[in-house]
């Protein structure tokens, strides 16, 4: 029997079109000789919160990707690439071994406290053999960690203090504020995500720091997103590599809003205080000015607070 090639190819096209399983959302299709296997992907339905961190070993070092989150509706960047970009930006993790007491979760998995067996008293340091505990716990493992944080640049408030002595009226104190916004020129106002060995929230200087001229106002507001822990295999002496198991402790689960203390940058306003005092050391004088009940204390605190650019994050 003769079959025209055109008819055969029409039949072929019909079969291919109608017997062709196409994977839709949350399912996969694997074609084998014996049939086409359909699989649902339950993980596609699993809730993944913003800022969800997925660590991975790239063959040379530990890296992480961060599920897109938003600050004031804007996606932060990693090394200048937005989190929403395709492919997503990769964060290199500068992991460092934990040298203090491990969290209880990891202690239960075999991570030892480096200070275990060392007892301190007022006069001596005693080392006690605690090796008997090893019979009752998993083999020793090591722990490394790294923090992932988010920050937004902001101007910093600085200032200079001057004291003038007048024999008739006593001392007067002048504080002349200055605003340092150089970081905004280099970083802009877009939030960034960084990895660090140990994140510490920016410390706001005290009023005494500002009067003493030792204040270092951080030029950013920052918040911890997560801590990545890496757990070594049992009894492992080598460096951190792909054989270590990652654990992520998230600290932030929702998108964020951020606002500075002021809607618009205030003009720096100097303050002048007639202390009524004569002479004296700076720190003693300033402590006296800032003491509770001193008539100048509230004014000084209010002046610093009203001119600081410190901002706050909140979840939305």
């Amino acid at each position: 029997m003769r079959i025209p090639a055109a008819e055969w190819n029409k039949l072929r096209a019909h079969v291919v079109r109608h017997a062709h399983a196409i994977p839709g959302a949350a399912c996969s299709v694997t074609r084998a000789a014996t049939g086409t296997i359909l699989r649902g992907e339950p993980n596609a339905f699993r809730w993944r919160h913003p800022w969800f961190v997925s660590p991975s070993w790239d063959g040379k070092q530990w890296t992480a990707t961060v599920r897109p989150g938003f600050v004031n509706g804007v996606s932060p960047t990693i090394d200048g690439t937005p989190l929403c970009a395709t492919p997503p930006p990769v964060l290199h993790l500068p992991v460092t071994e934990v040298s203090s007491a491990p969290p209880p979760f990891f202690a239960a998995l075999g991570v030892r406290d480096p200070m275990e067996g060392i007892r301190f008293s007022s006069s001596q340091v005693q080392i006690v053999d605690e090796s008997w505990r090893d019979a009752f716990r998993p083999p020793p493992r090591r722990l490394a960690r790294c923090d992932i944080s988010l920050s937004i640049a902001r101007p910093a408030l600085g200032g200079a203090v001057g004291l003038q002595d007048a024999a008739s009226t006593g001392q007067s104190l002048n504080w002349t504020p200055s605003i340092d916004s150089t970081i905004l020129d280099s970083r802009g106002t877009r939030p960034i995500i960084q990895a660090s060995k140990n994140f510490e929230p920016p410390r706001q200087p005290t009023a005494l720091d500002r009067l003493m001229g030792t204040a270092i106002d951080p030029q950013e507001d920052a918040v911890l997103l997560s801590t990545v822990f890496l757990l070594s295999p049992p009894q492992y002496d080598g460096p951190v590599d792909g054989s270590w198991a990652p654990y992520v402790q998230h600290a932030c689960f929702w998108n964020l809003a951020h606002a500075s203390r002021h809607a618009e940058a205030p003009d720096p306003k100097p303050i002048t205080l007639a202390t009524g005092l004569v002479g004296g050391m700076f720190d003693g004088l300033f402590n006296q000015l800032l003491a509770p009940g001193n008539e100048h204390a509230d004014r000084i605190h209010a002046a610093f607070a009203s001119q600081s650019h410190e901002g706050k994050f909140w979840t939305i």
Partner: protein
Amino acid sequence: MNLPPQAAKGKSVKEAWSAMCRWAKSSSLLPGPGVRLSRGANGTTINFRAPRQIFQGAFRVRLSGDRASVGFGTIDGKEPTIDGKPASNGGTIAFRAASADEEGRSWLVLRVTLDGKKISEKRDAITFAQSNAPGILAGPDGTIQHPLAVLRSPDPKKPGVGATLYQIEFFHLRILRAGDRFFILPAA
């Protein structure tokens, strides 16, 4: 995937027939884990048992072509409206990727019209709009905006192609007034 070969004029169809049979066999559907197949006269029904608890949250934005619908959500206990009707009644608003910013982003925002320090009683005082800026904090100029979702196109020169919708807001909201400033926070 290897498709069955096409037939050529003047050549035997036997080889193509065998390949077609192999291909048809490999096309028969087999259920994987969690999948149930029901074969009937009209075709094969495929069921997949998905986890039941899927977090949705408030103000869930869904896209359908150039229109967006927003799930139930409130601000200061009031539900937004679209054309005067509660948004959860199924109303949709225009949301086109074509009008994106230079980074390929376009926001769907909650827009609240204020009357002094209170939400206005006007029609559609709380509604949705497309915006090229998230505009989260605004002054007492009559309206405040809060981003609910952002649509981002990978290539800003081709808005809408391969665009991804990211949900930003998951909670019911309230407005906090502090002096002349307004802040939008999750409702307690």
